[in-house]
């Protein structure tokens, strides 16, 4: 169709330019056609091994490096861009349309980057293009939150650049291959990836910003940034044992927050970190099965997570709120959205026949194969937990629970179509996993459907549901109440600003006091000077500019004379 080494981001950047100057149907056509044509190009023309290099001055940017790993993420992002675009088709906001396209393009640029400089460029472009999807909400909160998001994302890029420079200094190479935690460059790049991958304590940009984005913007955000980080970690740090422990923490701590969180899109943001944890564990294990599991899980995760974000976006769009304390009973007005949300919920919970089941189990299997028994139990705990908060809590409190009295319309047709495509994909991957398995980068025999696996997973999940029902009946389940829960962002949103503010006011007060003391000393000195005999002379009373000029003239005259007499001497 096209030249096979056309970098995948190019169509999206061109489309973004075209979207700037078009409106209405023409623009809709561009937005929809770009992921279709780009995806077909990737599927039909691009084969593993293709490399596109662009020389800039004395450096060669590797804009396209296609192998099975990057290609799979490439397919995934095209599919997501397609159904997310349909979901957002009703939006008449040039900012969002253009930034959505630029963001998708930058994501593809990062995934196909063959060297660290190219990666850095797209890494930063992702940050800059995506922040407009948050700012487009135009609320005070969104603008502040977007600014924090941008600062953290750009910092990640700066760390990546610093790491790349150190690596170049030591090895003379900027190739983006296995990096490992060797030396300072490895750690800097690890940290850069870790920020975007929402490592514990570095995660708060995600739960802070995603829920503030527009209903459609959050769908793009949930899909791209963190999965590029997963891809980058899978390429740069496979088999790094530290990642297993980081991943295990990531699977667990967000669950507790998700249970008490009131904003349902923030619940999804926490569960996103939980799911990333599984992938990070897989990368840490580093065996072929584990890495395949990570990639497969990223694939199914992007789709079901986007589906969940879409359904909650539709609720926000129609009901005007996404707080679970205000919602409930929406199945009466939005039954189709409710059904689609439940499909997403079943997929993220890894119910048999849904996509999460066929991918997460690979990571679990690899983990116990490698002898990490305790961590395997942690992941099993997290599996029950994800069903609890994302599988039950989100659909239950939005669509069922008590009737909030909100009566609204079903989601618009384009939203329903976007969600339906994602839902069909969830079931397709879950029931026909061999199509996905055939695309995985490494050759491994694996089949998820056997009696043991199906039975144990069903037991785990159904008894988790029983616990939910039981706790609800006893009234122990935490009530849905409007509140903010402190997380690590407290450090930079409250502690540091407050400390800085009090330090500033302390210094200001001290400064004022010192100034007052100095002034009064000076005045006292002046007063006592006037009281002396010298005070009778005019010069001591005040120092007008004229007298100053006079005395400067006198001094200069003396210097001149001295100089003249000096030069006359032999």
């Amino acid at each position, binding site marked *: 169709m096209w030249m096979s080494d056309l970098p995948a981001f190019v169509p999206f950047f061109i489309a973004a330019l075209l979207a700037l100057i078009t409106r209405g149907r023409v623009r809709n056509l561009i937005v929809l056609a770009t992921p279709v044509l780009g995806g077909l190009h990737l599927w039909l023309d691009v084969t593993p091994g293709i490399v596109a290099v662009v020389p800039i001055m004395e450096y060669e940017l590797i804009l396209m490096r296609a192998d099975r790993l990057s290609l799979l993420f490439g397919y995934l992002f095209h599919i997501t861009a397609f159904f997310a675009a349909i979901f957002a088709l009703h939006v008449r906001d040039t900012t969002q349309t253009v930034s959505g396209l630029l963001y998708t393009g930058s994501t593809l640029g990062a995934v196909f980057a063959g060297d660290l400089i190219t990666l850095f460029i797209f890494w930063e472009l992702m940050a800059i293009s995506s922040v407009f999807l948050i700012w487009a909400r135009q609320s005070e909160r969104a603008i502040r939150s977007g600014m924090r998001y941008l600062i953290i994302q750009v910092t990640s890029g700066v760390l990546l650049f610093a790491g790349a420079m150190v690596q170049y200094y030591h090895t003379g190479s900027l190739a983006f291959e296995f990096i490992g935690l060797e030396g300072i460059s490895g750690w800097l790049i690890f940290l850069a990836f870790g920020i975007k991958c929402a490592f514990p304590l570095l995660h708060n940009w995600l739960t802070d910003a995603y829920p503030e984005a527009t209903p459609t913007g959050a769908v793009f955000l949930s899909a791209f940034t963190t999965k590029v980080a997963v891809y980058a970690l899978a390429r740069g740090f496979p088999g790094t044992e530290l990642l297993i422990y980081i991943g295990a923490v990531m699977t667990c701590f967000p669950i507790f927050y998700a249970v*008490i969180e009131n904003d349902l899109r923030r619940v999804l943001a926490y569960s996103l970190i939980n799911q990333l944890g599984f992938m990070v564990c897989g990368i840490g294990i580093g065996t072929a099965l584990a890495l395949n599991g990570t990639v497969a899980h990223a694939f199914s995760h992007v789709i079901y997570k986007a589906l969940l974000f879409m359904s909650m976006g539709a609720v926000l769009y129609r009901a005007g709120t996404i707080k679970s304390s205000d919602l409930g009973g929406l199945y009466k007005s939005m039954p189709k959205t409710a059904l689609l949300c439940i499909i997403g919920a079943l997929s993220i919970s890894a119910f048999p026949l849904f996509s999460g089941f066929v991918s997460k189990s690979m990571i679990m299997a690899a983990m116990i194969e490698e002898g990490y028994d305790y961590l395997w139990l942690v992941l099993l705990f997290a599996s029950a937990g994800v069903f609890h908060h994302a599988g039950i809590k989100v659909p239950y409190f939005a669509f069922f629970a008590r009737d909030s009295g909100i009566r609204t319309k079903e989601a618009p047709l384009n939203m329903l179509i976007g969600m339906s495509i994602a839902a069909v994909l969830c079931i397709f991957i879950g029931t026909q996993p061999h199509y996905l398995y055939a695309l995985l980068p490494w050759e491994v025999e694996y089949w998820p459907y056997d009696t043991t696996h199906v039975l144990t997973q069903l037991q*785990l999940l159904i*008894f988790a549901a029983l616990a939910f029902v039981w706790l609800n009946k006893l009234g122990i389940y935490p009530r849905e109440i409007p509140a903010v829960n402190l997380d690590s962002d407290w450090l930079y949103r409250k502690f540091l600003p407050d400390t800085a503010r009090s330090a500033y006011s302390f210094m200001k007060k001290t400064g004022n006091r010192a100034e007052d003391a100095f002034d009064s000393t000076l005045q006292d000195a002046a007063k006592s000077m006037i009281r002396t005999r010298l005070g009778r002379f005019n010069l001591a009373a005040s120092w007008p500019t004229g007298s100053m000029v006079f005395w400067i003239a006198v001094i200069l005259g003396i210097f001149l004379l001295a100089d003249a007499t000096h030069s006359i001497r032999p």
Partner: protein
Amino acid sequence: MNGTEPKPRQHLFDNPRNVSLVIRGLYGVCILLFLLDFILHRHVAREWEGITGFYALFGFIACVTIVLTAGQLRKIVKRKEDYYDVDE
């Protein structure tokens, strides 16, 4: 939101019988899945995994633990909704 519905329509879960039907169905499935542990042979990677009802108990206890712990966590981290809006 349009408040022009002539008569409040009876929806699926407005009838408490349907709700209890769902809950009873869940109990039934739970019992069935637990009993299947005795009938079906599971292959296990570790010995403790083979304990009868291991997964069922694990799922139940995990969720109760999560909810109780989260309740305690809320006592520590919960603030008013406008906590960050003041002086931010």
